Each structure stands twice: as C-alpha cells, then as structure tokens.
C-alpha cells in the first residue's frame, strides 16, 4: 500500500517540479499562466497528501480558481500596455521615476539574462543551504499537536485547525486579514475606475450556467464557513468561494456593473479587520489580554469574526479583480 503511496508522491513531486520549472522558463506569458493554474492544482494534491485538507481547500479555492482569473486579467492589461509601448506613441507624459508605475516599468525591462543568473543561483544555494542546516539541527520535537489537543476544551471549537487559527494564534490571522486589506489598498492606490459598460454574453449558455453556479457557490461558501468549526473549512476558504462567485458575475456582466457605493463598500472591506480589532481590544479591556476571549464567549466570538472575515475577503477579491478604487469621494 505505502509503496504505491510513495510512487504516487514521487510522480506528484515530479509533476510539481516539472510544471514549476516550465512555468518559470516559458517566455510566452499565457502559457506561464496556464501552467501556474495547473501548478495550483498539483499543489492542492500535495497538501492533501500532507494531511492538511484545510490548506488544500484554500489552495484549491484561491490558487487554482481566483489567482488564475486574476493573472489572466493582468495579462490582458500587460498585453495592452506592451502594445501601446510597441506602437511607440508616448501619448502619456514621461512617468515620474518614483511614481507608482516605476515598478511596472522595471518589470518590463528585467536585467539581461546572464547578469541575473549568477546572483540568483548563488542566492538560491545559500538559502537552500541555510534551510537544510536548520532542518538538520531540528530537535526531534513532537510538535504542537499534544499542546493543542490539551487545550481544545477551552478553544470553543472542536476542530484543531480553527482553534489554532482563531483562538490560540488569533494574532496571525488578524495580521493576515490586514495584509489582504493592504493588498487591496495598494491596488486602489494605482487608479480609479469608472462605470464598466455592460457586455451581455452571446447565447444562453453562460447566463444559464451562472444562474446555476452562483447560488450553489454561495451555499457552498456558507457551508464551508459553518463547517470550519468542526471540519476543514473556515473564513478564508469561504471568502474565496464567495469571491469567485462575485468574479463570475463581474465577468458575465449581463447589465452594466452598478457603481459600488464607496461608503458601504469600504465598510464591508474593512469589516473583518475592524471587528477582529474590536474583539481584541474588548479582550484587552476585559482582562484576558489582547485577542483573548472569555471561555464562555469563545465560540460566538469566533463565528462572528469568521463571518466578518468571509465578507471582507469576498469583497476584497472581487474589488481586486475589478481593480481601481470606486469613483466616489477622491479625498
């Protein structure tokens, strides 16, 4: 049995390394994106083999689904910029070197191949060496499993992953949510977008499928969110699924995309982080320490935070896809 498992792992490993190598080495950007989507799939399988269904779920939702769509959209924009540069008509003023697009320009004209090869290789070797030595001297510790299990009763949920994510190490999840928010603020700082014109899809197939898929996606999202307390699932995965449903709607766009009201949109996007902070400060004031929950209140608070986090992650992913801050007040 485990001989076959080892074979399966080896093939999977070969696939991952092969796809990654081809993805990086391919000059054609589109092929790289497709390879990246496949890489996300294989990585999800790898997580499954590592007995981490939660991360496999997240990888499936974000890695294979949404990132593929985001990359494809970015590719489109990149292609039109390249086209405009090739057409050689600089109808925009010479960019301010420290302006927001400097990074984009730098991306377009990477250092010539031979000059970056040696530093990159040496850097990889050094980091690789450090990792190996670190792992080599790793004391044979039994890991945190027993510690977590010992405190499961206090955590308010009975799925160890969620207990760690939202109770014992709530601080990390809080920072992750903040990072997602900052990523969106970064995208918004690059520019504004006006009304996106309606583009009804020809033929009944796409609207019909969406009528089936979107409700199922919403129900699955809520299910994954609810299952998070006793089975693999949780806020991030649920947020990603709801975000995917949103992105599908943005893509199909039967009617003109309504201009999101700036106020409520910003509130929704920062809901996750804000609520987490409020619960944290309440814990601080109530004497349990920052982000500490009273034992009786642990479960309801965790559910509350998860719902808010799902809402903000879904909104953030759709906003990232639409890219460009709402045209509201521009202070």
């Amino acid at each position, binding site marked *: *049995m485990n001989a*076959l498992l080892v074979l*399966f792992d080896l*093939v*999977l490993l*070969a*696939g991952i390394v*092969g*796809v990654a190598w*081809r993805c990086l080495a391919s000059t054609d950007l*589109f092929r790289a994106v*497709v*390879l990246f*989507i*496949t890489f996300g*799939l294989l990585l*999800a*399988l790898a997580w*499954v083999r590592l007995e981490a*269904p939660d991360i*496999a*779920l997240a990888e499936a*939702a974000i890695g*294979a*689904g949404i990132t*593929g*769509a985001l990359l*494809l*959209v970015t590719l*489109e*924009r990149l292609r*039109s*910029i390249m086209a*405009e540069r090739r*057409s050689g*008509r600089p109808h*925009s003023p010479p960019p301010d070197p420290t302006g927001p*697009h400097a990074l984009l320009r730098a991306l377009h004209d990477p250092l010539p191949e031979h000059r970056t090869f040696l530093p990159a290789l040496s850097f990889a070797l050094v980091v690789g060496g450090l990792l190996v030595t670190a792992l080599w001297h790793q004391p044979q510790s039994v890991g945190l499993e027993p510690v977590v299990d010992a405190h499961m009763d206090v955590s308010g949920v009975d799925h160890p992953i969620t207990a760690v994510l939202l109770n014992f190490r709530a601080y990390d999840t809080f920072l992750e949510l903040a990072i997602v928010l900052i990523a969106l603020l970064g995208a918004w700082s*690059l*520019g504004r*977008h*006006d009304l*996106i*014109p309606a*583009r009804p*899809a*020809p033929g009944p197939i*796409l609207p019909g499928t969406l009528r089936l*898929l979107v409700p*199922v996606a919403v129900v*699955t999202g809520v299910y*994954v969110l609810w*299952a998070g307390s006793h089975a693999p*699932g949780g806020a991030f*995965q649920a947020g990603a699924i709801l975000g*995917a449903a949103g992105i*599908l709607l943005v*893509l*199909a766009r039967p009617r003109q995309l309504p201009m999101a009201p700036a106020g409520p949109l910003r509130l929704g996007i920062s809901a996750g982080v804000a609520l987490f902070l409020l619960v944290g400060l309440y814990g601080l004031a109530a004497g349990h320490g920052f982000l500490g929950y009273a034992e009786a209140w642990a479960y309801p608070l965790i559910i509350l935070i998860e719902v808010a986090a799902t809402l903000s992650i879904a909104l953030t992913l759709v906003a990232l896809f639409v*890219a460009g801050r709402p045209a509201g007040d521009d202070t």
Partner: protein
Amino acid sequence: MSLFYLAAALFLLGTILLGLVRVLRGPGSGDRMLAAQLFGTTGVTILLLLSLALEASALVDVALVFALLAVVAAVAFVRQHGLPEPPDTPIHRQPPDTPGPERHHDDR
C-alpha cells in the same frame, strides 16, 4: 480496495502529466486553456479517489470547491481576451484606434 483507488489516482495523475504536453506545445491559447480545463476535472476525480483511498471524507469538500472554481479561470480567459479595460485605469491606456467605450462591435 484502497490499493485500487490509489492505482486509479496514480493513473489519472499520469494523464495530467501527459496533458501537459498539449499545454506546452499547444499552438493557440485556446488549446492551453482547454488542457487546464481537463486538468481541473481530472483533479476533482483524483481528489474523490483519494478521499476513499486515505479515508478522509474532508477531501470531498475540496473536490466540491474545485468543481465550483474550475469554471472561473475558463470564463475569465474567454471573456477577458482582448477586452478593453475601463478607460481611465491608469495602468492601461485606451488603445488609440478604438474610439472609446461605446465601441460595441465585439459580440463575444
């Protein structure tokens, strides 16, 4: 029994790696996207087989999410291809030849 499921999963993994050839060689981007679509489906099947081989029922949820999201990339590819972006997003300038948003000749 789980031996058999594992063998089937391995076989499907082999088909994915084979399919990569189409991704690498495929002349048009459409072909590549199709291959990605096939990999999505095969991925779902592998997950289902593994859920039985490793007795982890959670994997069915993962497969469900996979099935849901497989379509996002494909739709994004077809709908986004050559779509002019909203006019004033600074990263993208309106291609000079298209007069502007009222250009509705694309019926994709």
